[in-house]
Structures are given as structure tokens and as C-alpha cells.
């Protein structure tokens, strides 16, 4: 076990740090990250389930085209899938 000085070790194998459960904090971090570097916000969304929704919702907040929205619909290239 690696112990960083002064910081208690939190097992992360199947649970995230409890700080990620503070929704308001995570959303604020996500929004800031989206405004600075969207690619990092995408990485954040992929990190764990607790971060996925706040990060994705921040990413989706601002769209400069319909293309991405159409892309996630079951209609792609004029065809319906699902």
C-alpha cells in the first residue's frame, strides 16, 4: 500500500473518493473544465460513474451545431436505428 504523507489512503478499486459525491462541487469543476479544455472534460466524464453525468451535462450545455445531437439520435445518415 502506498501512503502519501498526511493523506489517508482510500481504496479506489470499486468506489470513488467521497469528495466526488458532492454534486455541486463536481458540477462546478466540470463547468470550469469545459470552458478551459473540453477534451479534459471528456476524459473526466470517462473517469467514473459519479463524474460521468455532471461532466457530460456540462459538455452538452453549449453546442455550436446540431450535428452532435443528431449523431446521438437513432437517426444517422437518414436511417433509423435502435
Amino acid at each position, binding site marked *: 500500500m502506498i501512503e502519501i504523507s498526511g493523506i489517508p489512503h482510500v481504496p479506489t478499486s470499486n468506489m470513488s473518493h467521497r469528495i466526488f459525491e458532492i454534486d455541486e462541487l463536481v458540477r462546478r469543476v466540470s463547468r470550469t473544465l469545459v470552458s478551459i479544455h473540453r477534451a479534459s472534460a471528456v476524459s473526466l466524464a470517462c473517469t467514473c460513474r459519479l463524474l460521468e453525468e455532471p461532466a*457530460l*451535462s456540462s459538455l*452538452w*450545455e*453549449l*453546442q*455550436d*451545431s*446540431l*450535428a452532435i*445531437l*443528431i449523431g*446521438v*439520435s*437513432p*437517426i444517422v445518415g*437518414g436511417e*433509423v*436505428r*435502435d
Partner: protein
Amino acid sequence: MELNDSGSGWHRFRKHATWMRRLFLREEDDRWMKDDVFDRLLAGSQVGLVCPALCLFTCYFTRANQRFIPHFLSPHLTHFAIRVRPSYRNIPRDLLPNPTHILQVLPTSCLQEISIDLDPNGLYRLEDEVASMIQRFGQALRVLRVPVPLGEAAVHHVVGFKNLRVWTNVCDPPPSTLPLSTNFPPLRTLTLRKDAYGWIPWLAQRERAISDVQGGPVGNVGLKATLTHLRFREWAPVDPAFISLLSLFQNLAILFVQSNCAGPVGCAFSLTNQDLAQLSAALPRLEVLELGRPCPTNTSLTTVPCLLALSVHCKSLSSLCIHLNTTDLIGDIQSLSEDPGLRDLGSLPTRCRLVTFKAGRLPFPHLTSDEDITTIAAGLVGIFPSLINVSFFGSGWVPLLSRVRELQGVPELASP
């Protein structure tokens, strides 16, 4: 093909669409509108509104998307802007997209900003629809850029907006039924088209009335305290009577008059040094002063001393465009140190931060010796210590520009 509403694909689509708050619809998006893709999207998602929580919506308004825009007009909209491509301005009126339906169904309860930048000639047919829409706006409205003449009732409604900060106005002068004691929104930015210039005398009269009456109606704040940007978008006479009215708005940072002297009236600029000195003293916060493009007739009554007055009084001035008589440029520069009144003014320590002197089409005096050019350059640098550039048409000002840059220790500009 049957659409499956319970499918995870549509569920995901709706979730993501619900997260959307701001959408900038691009011209390329028309291809989603033109085909039946968008129709199938609406049918498949089984929603009336594509993005039900959308707050900000901006788009290019086209014939292809005009039918679908209502599906983005969420009741939470705070910002709404549509505009047409510049190329649309040459299209016959009947072929232009028609925003009537959009104006009728636009949710206005939360709206804070609205900008409709369409062909004005086409918009003028929509006076009734615009007036009706304005009647539906609430007190949240802060920005109103809808260049359509308004009827009396709509004008009364607009001046009642307590939070309106930005107004682009093409209306006729206010109706006689609008008393000076009427509350007026605390505008920061007022943009006027030609037919609306009649507002200035009314507003000036109102300012004087407010100043005269101690303890006027609550909230009846004068534009003197709030107005920072004033723009005249079409030809205006730059004469003493017009400018003296503007001097009342003491907080102005930007004063822009889009005037040129190419029309049948000839040169529109008839200010004197005294007028500009008074203006500069009255509006010390000016950052941009543009009073029409300088014309080559060289008949204006303004000379170098007015530049000194502007630089001394308006220390934030960073953009200046005025007529200047250059017939005796060297004599005017020399008189700065000889005239007692100007010497006193010049001895004041403040100077503005102007970097570029806009000479435009002003002629540079002929037969100017090298020594004279140095005198003129030094004189201008004395007035504008940050000056490093002179913008002009033709080549007459080139030697002066080189000398200014030399004096300021700035490398020569590369030849084009």
C-alpha cells in the same frame, strides 16, 4: 420503419437534448433541416421542443430552417438572436425567410436579450408582429435589438422596461404623448438609426428637466448617469447644435457618428476647435470619438488645438476620427507653444493613450521640408505621447508616419 419510443437510443437523445442550454445553429446545420431528417427526429423523439431547457439560441435565419426554429423556442429562453447572411440582402423581398410565425410564438417571459438582424426592408412589414411581441416582454429584458419602427403603444411599453440596458432604435421621435417625466430605462447603450435621431432632443430636454427638479420620481435616473455608448448608424450632421446636446451625457465612453461627406449636402462636419474643446471637457470619459470619416475638402474649422484639448481632457481616448484642417499644419503646431491659452492647456500633465491617428482622406500639406515634418511629428507626439501609427489613404502621410515611428523608437513598417 416503426419508431420505438421506449428505445434506449431515443432515451439517450432526450437526456442529452435536455442538458443543452446554449445552441448556436450554424449554416451547415441546414442540411439537417432540408431533408426529412429533422421531421423524423421530431417524430421519433416525440417531443414538441427539441431542447426543452434551452436558454440561449442563436442562428442564421434561412428558408430551410424557418419551419423548424419554433421547435427550439423553449420557455426558458433568456437570449434569442437570429440574423440573415449578408448575401440575403440582395434577394427579392418575397423570397426572404419570413419570421412572422417565430415572432408570434417566441416565449418572452424569461427573455433578457433579443437581436433580430434581418433585412430592414423586409422587417418593416412586420411592425404589428414586433409591436405585439414587445407588449409580451417582461421586466427581465436587458437588450432589445429589433430594428423596426414602433407604434406609440410599443414605445410606451419599451420606455417602461426598468432593466433595459441596450436599445437599437429606429423609431420616429417619441410621440407628443410621452411626457418628460416618463420613467426611462437606465440605458447603457443606445444605437439610433436616422429616423430615430429625434430622440436626442427629447432625451436632452428630459436630462435638463431631471437636473432642474430635485428629488424626481423614484427610479427616474437620467441617462447622464448611465449612458456609456451612443451610436448614430446613419448620416448625421456633425454641427454645434447636434454636438452640444450630446454633451449632456457625461458618462459617454463611446460616441460614434457614422457620417460621411459624399452625399449631396457635402461636408457634414462644421464643428470648431471651441466646440470640440467644450465636448472634451464635458465628456472626460470618452474612449472612442468618431464623428464621421475625414473628407479631403480640407474646409473644416477644426485644427491641431482641438487635438490637444481632446488629449488633455479625455485621458482614456484610444480611438479618434474627426475632420481636421491641415492647410497650415505646421503653423498650427507652432502656435501651440506660442498661444498663451494653448500653452496653459499644454502644460497640463494628462494626455490620452491614442496609438493611431486616423487621417483618412485628409490631405497632407505639400512642399513640407524635412524639418517641417519633424516639427509636425514632434508636435503630434507631444499631444499623443503613445502615438506610433497614422492611418490614411494615399501616400501623402508616409513621411510623417516614418518620422513619428522614428521619434517613438518603433521599427519602420515593412513596405507593402
